[in-house]
């Protein structure tokens, strides 16, 4: 019984970790319909930047985190203004490949700057919390809280603010958005900035779990699976899908150890076969 509680709790925190990454690219997708495969790399870059500020420059965790997140925001803004803006209107496959290429570049760049060895980013949340026979690290609880917070904020942003509405409009029909005086270019750059900041937060929060190195970005692939389960593009869907995967995984691992690592994908395929567009579908039959 306590095993069940323990595994569920860790599963929830792991699921929240996936969600934290997923939120970033769902956000970009929602706003630009670009599937950003380089999001994991942004997360890695965020972690390295925070590491640089906090450890290498010795500014301490909190200041380092703040500066790291801000730098990533600027980076995200520039990434859109310099690169992504130019490929608007290209086929989804091309844009996707572009993000893959950007990911390659970022990864190589990080390797050249910081090397390929893993580093650990000492976090202030290193203690464990015990209650009722189960234990969880404070860092895991921080992940859960951060995810809930960011998820809530993004959801409010899209559903309650005019800016959120405008961004969605721009993704659905950019020309019409322009005609409605919406400053599409600036908004989209802003979205990239925010998404990169969310990625940095994810990198920073997940660092105790994954350590910081160039391969950290692979964490993002399961986050993709989670977002797809939820219905790609939906914020609550992403949270739901990632939680499902996060919670199911440890139980499947426990019950049947030899296949650890592919359950997320098997689960996702199973969901997609039943609901080809995820739990909260985001595509619609065209009205003709």
């Amino acid at each position, binding site marked *: 019984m306590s095993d069940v509680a323990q595994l569920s709790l860790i599963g929830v925190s792991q699921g929240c970790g996936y969600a934290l990454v997923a939120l970033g690219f769902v956000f970009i997708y929602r706003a*630009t*319909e670009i*599937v950003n495969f380089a999001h994991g790399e942004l997360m890695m870059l965020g972690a390295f930047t925070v590491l640089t500020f906090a450890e290498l420059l010795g500014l301490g965790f909190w200041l380092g985190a703040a500066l790291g997140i801000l730098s990533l925001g600027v980076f995200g803004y520039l990434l859109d203004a310099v*690169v992504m803006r*130019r*490929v*608007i*209107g*290209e*086929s*989804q*496959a*091309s*844009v*996707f*490949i*572009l993000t*893959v*290429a*950007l*990911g*390659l*570049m970022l*990864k*190589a*760049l990080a*390797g*050249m700057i910081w090397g*390929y060895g893993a580093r650990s980013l000492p976090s202030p949340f290193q203690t464990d919390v015990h209650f009722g026979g189960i234990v969880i690290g404070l860092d895991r609880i921080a992940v859960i809280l951060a995810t809930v917070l960011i998820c809530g904020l993004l959801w409010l942003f899209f559903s309650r603010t005019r800016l959120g509405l405008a961004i969605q409009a*721009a*993704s*659905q*029909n*950019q*020309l019409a958005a*322009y005609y409605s005086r919406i400053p599409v270019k600036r908004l989209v750059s802003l979205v990239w900035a925010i998404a990169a900041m969310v990625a940095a937060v994810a990198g920073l929060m997940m660092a105790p779990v994954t350590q910081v190195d160039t391969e950290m970005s692979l964490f993002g*692939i399961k986050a993709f*699976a989670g977002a*797809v389960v939820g219905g*790609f*593009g939906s914020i609550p869907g992403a949270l739901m899908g990632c939680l499902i995967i996060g919670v199911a995984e440890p139980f499947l691992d426990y019950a049947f150890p*030899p*296949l650890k*690592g*592919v359950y997320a*994908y*098997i689960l*996702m*395929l199973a969901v*997609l*076969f039943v609901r*080809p*567009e*995820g739990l909260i579908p*985001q*595509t*619609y*039959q*065209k009205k*003709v």
Partner: protein
Amino acid sequence: MRVLFKTSYDQDIDLLVLPGERMRVGALIALAILAPLLLSSYYLSELAIFFSFALAGIGLMVLTGFSGQVSFGHAAFVGIGAYVHAVLVARGVPFPLALAAAGLLAGGVGAALGRAVSAMHGFYLAIATLAFSIVMETVIGAMEPVTGGHMGMPVPGIALFGVALEEAWQQHYLYLAVLLFFVWGVANLMRAPTGRAMIAVRDSETSARSLGIDVRSAKMTAFFVSALIAGVAGGLLAHQLQYLSPETFGVGMSLKLMLMIVVGGLGSISGAIFGAVFVSFLPNAIDALRALMPDGLVSQAGLESFIFGAFIAAFIIFEPDGLHGRWRKLRLFLETYPYYKRATFIRQKRYLKTGRFR
């Protein structure tokens, strides 16, 4: 500009109508036939690997370029083909039969997958195929008695009708023949009703249905043909790798295949081949470039993949229609010279419109 007056429907049906086209394709084939005289065995083996990848790229082009089904797991079919082929050849099955079996089995798995995912669209499909390939990699790893598991298995040499083809030039002709056969076949398919149905499904499913196209079966056909070709490519590739292990056919290879067709230009057969040339020989080009770089930079680990990424990114930003598109423009420029207009080569502003409609 040159004007072609068509005098029969056959001219629209035939593959190569313009004398220029015929000359170009003929010259390319002639060059490929003469290659063993011109190239060392190193370049011939590079060519053989390139032929295998180009073939797999054509397979993916059928699926993604022509019928709009994005697959990020196509390496799985290459892997299935490679393993089936290698296992059969190792058990003494003649090369052509083994290759055919590899293609058919990969095609069968592809069709089954195609049926299962026929209701998925765009990105869902992409991620589903990616997941499929990850699962497939694990399955191959788990089938240890047959596939050698994660340790992998060696691939026997090629023997055709009892004759061992050990020389690079012999393999060269074999690979060239297989590649040309499938290029021809796919070109045929695309000028016939089945191919047009695939294109129709890509552009508008609703419309395709209203014209009597069974969308699901069109998708299955596309998956079948595409996976079959990828499987055959896998069989060819196996002999060049000489050693198979499951992770060879992982996400990295799938992305590389995707890269090839995007860089080449989605929706054209020559695009798949141009793209394969580009992606396959880019590392060689980067290698050559290294001679020009300062010493400290050259020994930087990861430089190759950075430049590789940069090339691809630049390509997509500056020539989103791919090499095929660039080639068309170049031809237009030459044909209309000196009457070309500068505006021809300038892109109008474009606007994103939602892809969330089925």
